[in-house]
């Protein structure tokens, strides 16, 4: 979509044209859902959170002043909403005992998601172990670091784009992402040391 036609759609959507909003949002739906999916690792939470993001886009569209790209603004809403919703669910999970059951169920679907058909059975086992290890570490990562890893390392957003989403300078953004990767690595090292001893 060209910037101009996107701008026109935004203006029409702000004036209450829901068809224009539909056209505007359609190219982003899958991406937002996938980001939420990586954040929550279960379909229901990802579904709810990404719906929440897109409804927020609709409700706040009149506040979008074309100071950034629309996609940047949308991803800022997506990041903030995912972080908020993740915190809410984490708080809720801390009060329930279903967490282990949930994690157990999730592992299976996660490994299914990562199956690489070019590997030998031995390699696949090893790969699956690594996948689970990373997935487990991602689950322990703080939510604001997790979302940065999702944008940078899973979906390959550039530092420049992420800096704009965060409204931060490039240097700060780079060091925040390095620290998030470092934290992820430290979680894995700690886990390995625990299982070794």
């Amino acid at each position: 979509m060209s910037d101009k036609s996107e701008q026109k759609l935004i203006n029409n959507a702000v004036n209450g044209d829901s068809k224009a909003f539909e056209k505007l949002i359609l190219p982003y739906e899958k991406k937002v859902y996938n980001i939420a999916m990586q954040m929550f690792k279960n379909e229901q939470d990802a579904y709810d959170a990404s719906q929440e993001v897109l409804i927020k886009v609709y409700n706040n569209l009149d506040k979008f002043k074309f100071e950034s790209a629309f996609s940047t603004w949308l991803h800022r809403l997506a990041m903030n909403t995912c972080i908020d919703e993740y915190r809410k669910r984490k708080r809720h999970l801390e009060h329930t005992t279903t967490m282990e059951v949930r994690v157990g169920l999730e592992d299976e679907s996660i490994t299914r998601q990562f199956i690489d058909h070019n590997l030998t059975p031995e390699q696949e086992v090893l790969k699956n172990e690594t996948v689970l290890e990373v997935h487990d570490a991602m689950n322990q990562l703080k939510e604001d670091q997790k979302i940065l890893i999702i944008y940078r390392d899973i979906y390959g957003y550039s530092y420049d784009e992420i800096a704009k989403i965060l409204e931060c300078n490039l240097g700060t953004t780079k060091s925040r992402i390095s620290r998030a990767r470092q934290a992820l690595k430290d979680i894995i090292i700690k886990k390995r040391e625990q299982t070794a001893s």
Partner: protein
Amino acid sequence: MMECIKAREWIHLHMDRSLDHSNEALLMAHIEDCDICRRDYEILMSIHQVLQSTDEVDLPSDFHETLMKSIKKRPKKRQNILFLKQLNIAAVIVFVLVFGLIGINNLNQNKSFNNDEVSEEMLSMSAITEENSEMNVAMDATEFEDASLSRASNENERSQKATSDSLLLEVDHQYGNDLLGVRYDEGWIIVMVGGILIIGLLIGYIKLKL
């Protein structure tokens, strides 16, 4: 021999494929020698590989439908803005009609036709003169300041109205002057006030963003 702090920084650059060739060689040399940096490098690279091979999942089939449903359910303040705009347009139309009619009435009719005793015949005559005077008002609106021109056309108008006036003469003698009590010049004031109000409303409309 490079320091571990530098190596750590370069591992991230290596992950991002933005480390240049000469530094790449230095980093690899350090990783060969330093156990801790080698371990970090290996873990970071395997994390990177796992994350990058994540498949995209498809959107659930009812996702878009659910979203549009919940959006349409929410009567938003945006719709209130739309309502305000419609109200503004309606107000403009009402003012144009009301002040237009009053203006026409007073500009061209020194004497009122709003008399109950006026015959059917006279009413149909006045309808014809009103049609003519509508054209006059249109002229007046564009050439606001040029009052003399409009007045001149009013003079024309009056000669055309001679026949209807003669018919009214008898009624006038009996009932005196204009029932509304608005005179020739006051018609202009009403048209001007109406015009200002219309301009004000149009500015209001533009400010709400077309």
